[in-house]
């Protein structure tokens, strides 16, 4: 900050303008957060007392209370914004904000390979241009691409957007919205990122699950909503197993209220166990947490060892298995070794693979069987690994064998985190109103899964199975084959279905569908948030991509490889409405007027689509002729909020907590009805029951040796033998790359968000200062592995496999299981050269292949690499070889930044 940015006189109350925001790192909103500003500049961001505008009596019918053993728990009057929201001033005023439209200095529009300089993407810098010039480029390039190849050559990337909590102004499909008015587009589809194992595995065991498609369990009869799971756990569970995810961070992305819930459960005397390669942030700060260290992606072995104990000691619910499940015998025979394979999955067998002592596997089995146990899953860990469908399925098996749905035996997950149902709630996750114009999960005539974009660009054709959506899809859609380029008959079929759904005349001829030559991203972080990042960089650096434009708030990651970058507002700057839909103490609906002046020349994605729409005469098809204020009121009018509060009162107060359903306490919790009466409340599996072995998988993919009809211990092998992966300690590649990496989200980032928050970066565990003064991403290593490699704390460490090398710095800790390292995903890329990065963005070296042959989701944790100290002479060599990369501006507070990449 320059000196004129420093406020030198204390503000007075009358100078302040305080707005309420719903800042979160996800699209579903966060807890009410107050932003105090003076003269259009943010002074502070803080929690808010929800009884400021309503009396406690007025709020009484909107707030829940849990009770157990005379101890009660209810939402506090003061909100608990997520830690990220409280530091959001850093994001709004980041030195990494895109201030103006930027053009890469050596890229020219027109598609001439000699003027694209594709190989310089990620290397050459940017220059400031005006919005007029930027819109000219957008107009001329879109016209050129459409006239040369057709509109389907435009790939709209990033339907999940920047992940800020916005509504009307949200990104992640405004480009698709616009392109749909220009004749079509190819849609890049998000793959089931947080839920891979459940999506590809557990759905074949217990059905579509939450949101009719995510794969974590939910009853079909309630519209796939699991209500009152937390209430059920509070009242009945004795033990909670944290299977994946780190409660104190993942679960807190919308609110930090969850720390209080855990404290309450501790007060009630519940026990907790965390099976994780890392003694995670939840395990270390609560005395009650039992940590079981495990080698990454060996959970399937552990689970089979546990099930072996249950089967041989009769410690499972046999009646339930008889009445609620089918084909248990096949899994039982496999575990006991009485099948054709003949290998008993004893605790000894399991221990040799997962590294957990035999006695601890047995103790886990008996504790879970003898205590009323629920399982909490908040993404991360084994469900994001190679072959993640296997741990997804064994996770489902464990619950099935202990009577899923029985009082206190539930699966707790993001979409089952509602504390109590409000009367007008649409689901356990949806906000009360929505005016979002970008997140239309409509199908499209041609699409590419995000995990396969690089391959599509490189090979020109790909094939996959599954629906292009991650929510609202049924299990059987995983059996459909899709192609890129899309086959004409498939395109026509899809377009006819879309037209019919929209009540329009179905087309009779397929449009011209060509390959992709332009990428337009509203989520420019695929290289370090998704998989195979270096390979993605390679694909972008080819002449196939004639134009790559990104809309984004911050100059980072994929944008460094773009030709044009358009500056976007943060959620605090927009006039919008939001609120919160899930993972907060209690969802609210709220207005979020601008909390500060706009930064630079930024516009929201909605506004950018409107501006480009102007150039093509289609603006009114996007904004529908309404002003932003009219949109916001329209959002209220089309919601059910008006049943409880008038627009005038809502507008005056700025937020509202809908009343709880009168009978909310009586709603059957989680899977209770299935437990009590499986015939009347069946699952949506083919049999209506839990299927330990899937006939549907056997019928559709009879030759798939990776995802067979039931979960197995799969180690993969060489590609020439038909394997997708060799990423375990029992194959060939481990001889060269013997460490397994855990790459979960970080404590002080959410995925790729917030790596530039300077107040986080200086927290001891957040970054490691190298001998050169650069703040490197930490690689957490056990001292055994570090000493074996001559690595000491603070050393710069090369992490590599055949996919490339990223630089990190060592943090030696007892919190890591020997044989594994932890590098949190999502630090910003800082390219030195192709396949060499200084930023420590670990997903750059994650597998290029997907989950398995028929499952094209990502595998971004639990894979192999090697660690080696970067010596001073190697460092000097790199610096001499790549002087430009090492000469880029480096800010001591936020590291690489806007100035690193923009020429004066």
């Amino acid at each position, binding site marked *: *900050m320059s000196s004129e*940015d*420093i406020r*030198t*006189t*204390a503000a007075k*109350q009358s100078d*302040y303008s*305080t707005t309420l925001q719903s800042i979160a790192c996800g699209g579903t909103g966060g807890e009410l957060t107050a932003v*105090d500003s003076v003269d259009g500049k943010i*002074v*502070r*961001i*803080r*929690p808010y007392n929800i009884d400021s505008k309503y009396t406690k009596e007025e709020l009484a019918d909107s707030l829940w209370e849990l009770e157990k053993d005379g101890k009660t728990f209810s939402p*506090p009057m*003061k909100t*608990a914004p997520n*830690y990220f929201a*409280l*530091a959001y*001033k850093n994001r709004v005023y980041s030195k990494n904000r895109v201030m103006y439209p930027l053009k890469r200095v050596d890229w020219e529009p027109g598609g001439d390979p000699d003027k694209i300089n594709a190989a310089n993407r990620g290397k050459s810098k940017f220059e400031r241009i005006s919005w007029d010039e930027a819109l000219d480029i957008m107009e001329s390039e879109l016209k050129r691409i459409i006239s040369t190849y057709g509109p389907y050559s435009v790939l709209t990337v990033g339907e999940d957007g920047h992940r800020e909590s916005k509504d009307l102004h949200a990104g992640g499909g405004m480009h698709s919205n616009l392109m749909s008015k220009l004749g079509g587009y190819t849609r890049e589809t998000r793959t089931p990122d947080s839920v891979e194992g459940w999506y590809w595995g557990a759905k074949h065991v217990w059905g579509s699950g939450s949101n009719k498609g995510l794969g974590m369990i939910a009853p079909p009869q309630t519209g796939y909503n699991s209500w009152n799971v937390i209430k059920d756990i509070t009242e009945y569970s004795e033990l909670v197993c944290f299977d994946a995810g780190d409660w*104190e961070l993942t679960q*807190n992305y919308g609110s*930090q209220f969850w*720390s*209080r819930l855990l*404290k309450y459960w501790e007060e009630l005397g519940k026990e907790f*166990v965390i099976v994780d390669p890392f*003694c995670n*942030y939840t*395990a*270390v*700060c*609560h*005395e009650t947490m*039992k*940590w*079981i*260290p495990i080698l990454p992606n060996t959970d399937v072995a552990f689970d089979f060892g546990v099930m072996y104990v249950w089967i041989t000691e009769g410690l499972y619910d046999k009646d339930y298995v008889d009445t609620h499940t089918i084909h248990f015998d096949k899994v039982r025979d496999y575990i006991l070794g009485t099948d054709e394979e003949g290998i008993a999955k004893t*605790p000894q067998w399991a221990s040799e693979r997962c590294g957990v*002592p035999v*006695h*601890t596997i*047995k*103790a*886990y089995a008996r*504790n879970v069987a003898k205590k009323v146990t629920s399982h909490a899953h908040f993404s991360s860990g084994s469900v994001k690994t190679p072959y993640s469908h296997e741990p997804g399925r064994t996770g489902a098996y464990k619950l099935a064998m202990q009577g899923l749905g029985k009082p206190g035996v539930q699966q707790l997950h993001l979409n089952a985190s509602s504390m109590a149902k409000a009367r007008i709630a649409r689901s356990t996750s949806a906000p009360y109103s929505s005016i979002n114009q970008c997140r239309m999960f409509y199908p499209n005539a041609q699409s590419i899964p995000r995990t396969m974009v690089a391959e599509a660009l490189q090979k020109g054709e790909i094939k996959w199975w599954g629906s292009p959506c991650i929510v609202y899809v049924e299990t059987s859609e995983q059996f459909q084959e899709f192609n890129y380029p899309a086959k004409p008959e498939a395109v026509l079929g899809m377009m006819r279905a879309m037209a019919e759904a929209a009540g329009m005349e179905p087309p009779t001829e397929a449009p011209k569908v060509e390959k992709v030559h332009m990428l337009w991203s509203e989520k420019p972080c695929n290289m370090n948030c998704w998989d195979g990042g270096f390979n993605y960089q390679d694909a972008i650096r080819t002449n196939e991509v004639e134009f790559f434009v990104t809309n984004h708030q911050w100059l980072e990651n994929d944008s460094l490889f773009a030709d044009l970058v358009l500056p976007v507002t943060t959620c605090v700057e927009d006039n919008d409405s939001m609120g919160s839909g899930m993972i907060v103490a209690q969802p609210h609906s709220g207005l979020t007027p601008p909390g500060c002046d706009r930064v630079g020349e930024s516009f929201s994605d909605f506004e950018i689509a409107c501006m480009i729409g102007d150039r093509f005469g289609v603006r009114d098809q996007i904004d529908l002729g309404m002003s932003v204020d009219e949109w916001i009121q329209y959002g209220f009018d089309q919601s059910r909020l008006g049943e409880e509060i008038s627009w005038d009162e809502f507008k005056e107060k700025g937020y509202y907590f809908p009343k709880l359903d009168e009978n909310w306490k009586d709603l059957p919790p989680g899977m209770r009805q299935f437990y009590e009466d499986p015939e009347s409340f069946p699952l949506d599996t083919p049999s209506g029951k839990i299927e330990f072995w899937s006939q549907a998988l056997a019928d559709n993919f009879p030759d798939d040796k990776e995802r067979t009809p039931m979960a197995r211990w799969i180690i993969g092998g060489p590609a020439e033998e038909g394997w997708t992966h060799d990423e375990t300690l029992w194959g060939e590649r481990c001889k060269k790359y013997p460490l397994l990496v855990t790459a979960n989200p970080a404590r*002080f980032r959410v995925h790729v968000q917030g790596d530039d928050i*300077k*107040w986080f*970066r*200086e*927290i*001891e*565990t957040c970054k490691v200062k190298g001998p050169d003064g650069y703040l490197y991403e930490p690689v957490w290593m056990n001292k055994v592995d570090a000493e074996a490699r001559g690595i000491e704390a603070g050393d710069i460490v090369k992490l590599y496999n055949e996919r490339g090398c990223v630089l990190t710095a060592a943090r030696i*800790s*007892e*919190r*890591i299981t020997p044989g594994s390292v932890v590098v949190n995903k999502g630090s910003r890329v800082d390219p030195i050269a192709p396949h060499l990065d200084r930023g420590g963005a670990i997903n750059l070296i994650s597998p290029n292949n997907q989950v398995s042959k028929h499952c094209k989701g990502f595998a971004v944790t639990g894979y192999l690499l090697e660690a080696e100290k970067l010596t001073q002479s190697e460092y000097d060599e790199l610096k001499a070889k790549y002087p430009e990369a090492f000469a880029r501006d480096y800010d001591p507070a936020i590291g690489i930044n806007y100035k690193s990449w923009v020429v004066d």
Partner: protein
Amino acid sequence: MKAFLIDLTKCVGCHDCQIGCKDEHCDQAWMPYAEAQPEVGQFWMKVKQFERGHAPHVKVTYMPTMCNHCENAPCEAAAKNGAVYRREDGLVLIDPAKAKGQREIMDACPYHAIYWNDALNIPQKCTGCAHLLDGDHPISVPRCVDNCHVDVITFGEEAELDLEGTEVLHPEYGTKPRVFYRGLPKKFIAGTVFDPDAEEIIEGALVTATGDAGTFTATTDSWGDFWLRDLPDAEWTVTIEHGGKKKSVAVSTVSEDQGLGDVALC
């Protein structure tokens, strides 16, 4: 007189207190209370973290630390021209105008809670957010207190705080801190007891630590785990007994906590 109470047993390590402090003071001056804090590098509220034990018995203690607003403040004594002053409510403040160039103020603090601002040539530290307490702002409590969502940090009249059983940091310095702690870390010895022949954990084993500092006991739970907590720094003989079997090991908690890992009882 005001005081802070910091309850470490409730802390989850979110750093909200540290972030709130920075949100209030970095690049924002609240004169005459405080000049702007540099964008990074100073920690008027600092969460220290201590990794303790050995796998799989590992815990982290998070400890928010700040200016102790000492009754006998060494910084006050070291300051010239009354550059450090005590308010009626007990908060100790540095007057940025008068403190210019006075490095002695920073050097005097045995807790290292005062930082030097090179650009402004002044010492800086926690003000207890006195500008907020004095009114005319949207909130009237210190930011670290307001931001804490698990009630670790409370601020108020000393007489109204429950200070029973609390401690201060380094009482031996003799500065009479007005920041009180509950749950300051003591040492632990932990382990998992198992029978190597049966490959089973042992539940209900009696674990006794004896030494000059006293005798402490624990019983292994259904995971085979024992946790001997709140131990003083000392040398111990830890004896594990179950089913007629007995094992003794020498353990020291003088310099660190001890996670003994899997302990075979045979």
